């Protein structure tokens, strides 16, 4: 449980950090933010990065602010920053509800939102949320800066569209219109564990009908994604058991679940059905 030898770098600016990354990434140099995923794998010696570029000293990356109708979350913003709603309205409430499912309190005081997104664990709550809400990922490198939309960002298990020399400096979440109903439900063996399946749902109700439904499923497939079939089953319907059950069935039918030693594809599919319906019910309840 002692990591293999590594060299530690402490850049003071993003420019310094991306310059180091450009130089060291080809030698498996890695960014260290909260370290809650990377450091345990180093302790197990499953990861042996010879260089760690520690961005914790870059004050500009601690930014959490609303800009142009979006909540901008800097690379060093900890999970714990969302224990209370960081912004008024449905988005803040949703973030504060979701954060409670992320690991345990000490981990949340250290781990970061952007770190989770860049790590792209299939069971990451923030990744599911980013996909559901259509987040924008800001990637910076010595070559420049670009914005990657959420639906183009996640590529597979712990694989993203980030190039090896790119640092995820910020994630921007669109604020949700007033009246947006949101729900999140996940199933895990224990509180704080990686979820076996999770669903996040948002929609509005206009004239008694569901408008702009979004349903994202995480934990079941290599990366979270919106389930168009479930959203179609909701759009224009009255919110209630019939629509929710239909959407949940469509989600279960649409996913291609991962299998592992504990969880068969069938089991995960059953869970997708359950968590999708429960997320929708929760959204409905929250809206009443």
């Amino acid at each position, binding site marked *: 449980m*002692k990591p293999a030898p590594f060299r530690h770098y402490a850049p003071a600016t993003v420019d310094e950090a991306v310059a180091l990354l450009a130089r060291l990434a080809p030698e498996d140099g890695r960014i260290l933010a909260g370290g809650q995923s990377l450091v345990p794998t180093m302790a197990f010696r499953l990861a042996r990065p010879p260089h760690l570029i520690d961005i914790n000293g870059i004050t500009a990356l601690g930014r959490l602010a609303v800009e142009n109708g979006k909540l901008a979350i800097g690379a060093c913003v900890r999970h714990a920053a969302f224990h209370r709603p960081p912004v008024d309205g449905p988005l803040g409430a949703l973030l504060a509800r979701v954060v409670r499912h992320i690991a345990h309190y000490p981990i949340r005081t250290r781990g970061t939102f952007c770190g989770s997104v860049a790590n792209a664990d299939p069971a990451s709550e923030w990744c599911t949320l980013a996909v559901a809400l259509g987040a924008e990922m800001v990637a910076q490198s010595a070559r420049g800066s670009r914005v990657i939309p959420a639906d183009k960002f996640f590529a597979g298990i712990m694989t993203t569209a980030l190039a090896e020399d790119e640092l995820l400096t910020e994630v921007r979440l669109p604020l949700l219109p007033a009246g947006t109903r949101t729900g999140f439900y996940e*199933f895990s063996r*224990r*509180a*704080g564990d990686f979820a076996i399946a999770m669903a996040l749902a948002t929609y509005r109700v206009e004239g008694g009908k569901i408008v702009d439904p979004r349903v994202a499923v995480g934990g079941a497939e290599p990366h979270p994604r919106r389930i168009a079939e479930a959203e179609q089953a909701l759009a224009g319907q009255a919110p209630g058991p019939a629509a929710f059950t239909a959407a949940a069935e469509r989600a279960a039918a649409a996913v291609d679940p991962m299998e592992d030693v*504990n969880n068969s594809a*069938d089991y995960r599919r059953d*869970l997708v059905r359950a968590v999708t319906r429960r997320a929708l019910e929760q959204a409905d309840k929250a809206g009443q």
Partner: protein
Amino acid sequence: MNAPGKVEATTWIGRSVERLEDPPLVTGRGRFAGDISFPHQLHMRIVRSNHAHGRIVGIDTAAAKALPGVVAVWTAADIADVPPVDFREGRIERLEPWRQPVLATDRVRYVGDPVAAVFAESAYVAEDAADLVTMEIEELPLLLDARDEPGEFSPGRSTEAIVLRQGYGDVDAVMRTAHAVVDLELSVGRHSGVPLETRGAIGRYDASRDMLELHGAAKVPHRNRDLLARMLKRSPSSISVHEAHVGGGFGIRGELYPEDVLVCVAAMRLGRPVKWIEDRREHLICANHSRQQTHRIKAGVAADGRILAIDDEFWHDQGAYVRTHATRVAMMVCGILPGPYRVPAYRSVGHFRLTNKTPAATYRAPGRYETTFIRERLVDAIAHRLGIDAIAVRRKNLITKEDMPYHVPLEVLGEAVHMDTGDYAALLDKVLAAADWPNLQAALEARRAKGELVGASVAMFIEKSGLGPSDGARVSVDTSGAVELVTGGASIGQGFETVMAQVCAETLGVDYRTVRVVHGQTDRIAFGIGAHASRATVMTASATHNAALKLRDKALEYASGMLQAPVDALAIVGGKVVRTDRGASPSISLGEIAAGLAPTSKTRGSREPGLSAEGWFDTEHQVYPYGTHLAVARVDRETGGVTIERYVIGYDIGRAINPMLVNGQIVGGFTQGLGGALFEEFIYSERGDPLSASFADYVMPTAHETPRVEVILTEEAPTPLNPLGIKGAGESGITGVGAVIASAVEAAIGMPGAITALPITPQRLKRILDGRR
């Protein structure tokens, strides 16, 4: 002599006084194995097999030895004179071929098997060097399931090391004539005690005194000293074993493992102290596993529910080697399976088989957690088969108060089973009353009618505790009046010091806070059997009581002369000898008596110097406490998740020294039992790779998953077998958990006979609910 004080009896036994152990622990001043360091020490890192079974073709240590800071790298050839780790209770010749070598010799037999040991200037360098050791292994056929045909352990030796048998009566004849025969196949999963503190061992050799020290011991320091002496061919008095704070034991920590032997041998041969601290992955793949068994059990029953005979055959998955406990767990299974019921004829056949997995041994309530699950499942199945209420079947078969003492021609830990006292039915009544059973059942029925999956059940068991045969303690008072109690016991966090101090203080008439309790130090007392088998309070407290009585007599005899009063008119109150027959009168403190008995004191006379006494307690039989667990479970039909809504534990302890600590033992035990029932399981891949090697994959219950436990502690049946009537408490909280949760879940889903294995994971339960077994 002091001014006369108020005469008032102090009573410490039976009070939930605060723990003496806590001040250093809650202020960060504890001393665990990791806190122990010596100047110039080396750090040891073990290189472990990545293959579950194979022949060692070659091990290359050259690159590791060349790394700066590395002092030595050993393989089996370097310690060819060190024998395999022997059995704790002495030689067992016929099991010797299956013992674990300190470093693997010609074969590796599980992933984690120690192959080489690196000694270096720092723990980091040691781990870097261990990475550089390479091994060539020629793979051999794997055996991962004890139910499969046995294979070859070593040339000419089967992996079925022994078949264990216990029983009595003509089981076959009874089965032929029984009204019905109920048979089941049931399994308990592989799980174990996982203490917060991993193992640690620090070896130190003092050449100036020719003394070998082992620090980081727990549970059975004296036994380990004797075992090390045998293995290293040293006299027991030339080895001292030391226990510090212990962050949880649970039966698995404190046994002698290969690493303990290695630090001792290395300390002597390398001439420097050697420290080893286990990491969590090592712990989960190397420290003793436990529990894994499959039973095929049959019961012959009468139409009214009476059990006429039980016939059990089981397959015990021992893992790769036979460790210090030998066949203790499997033999316990044979001896204690009938539990609290009258079983006129009984046969138990245990196949003790080795597999290519981590070796197994005792874990809190060894043999009882497993057999209570098996037996109580059987009772539920009998009830279902005969259409009789399961509680009625239990009542029909319970051993009664009038039957006591009740002898069973079976043995447990080498002693005949002798249930000393008990009223099992009365305790069952108390638990049912506490849960308001008829109304509870009606409420659950109403919820089920609305579609909820909820159910309740009970499980009953007997415990055994207070393993003898003997324990000693030495108590002495210094001239300040401070009391020192030296025991051969051990503290694994259970409150040993507090309980011993309470018993000592009660007998001696002092404040329990003035008693310093010494444990786990083999250089302070010659004998000791430590803390296991729920024995410490029964055995060590009884010896403490006897020692304190002797010291009391000595003090009163001396005081009688000083106070000019007959002994029977004196008592010790608050550390002072006072007259009980008069109001205001002179007194003399224990410190003054100690000064008066000093070797140089003129008032000593011909008395033996010093205010001290040694006391012993011998016993031929363990004592048998008993309990009933009751659970209400709710099942999530869509996910297979289980929530325990309510949990009641009734337990008769004979006499509780400190009810708060007993409660703590019971609730802690329950939580571990919940792990084995719903969460914890060591899983292996088809290649024998351990897949539960971190806390992300070995899933233990946390506070979120643990319900509040209602404990009903009774003292209806104190044992006549020791002076204070004490029975043990360490394992009572865990014993019934797997059994009662299985039963309650089955009641919730309304599928009799569906739950046949632990743990009941949501994935498995969902399959059962879907009929996809």
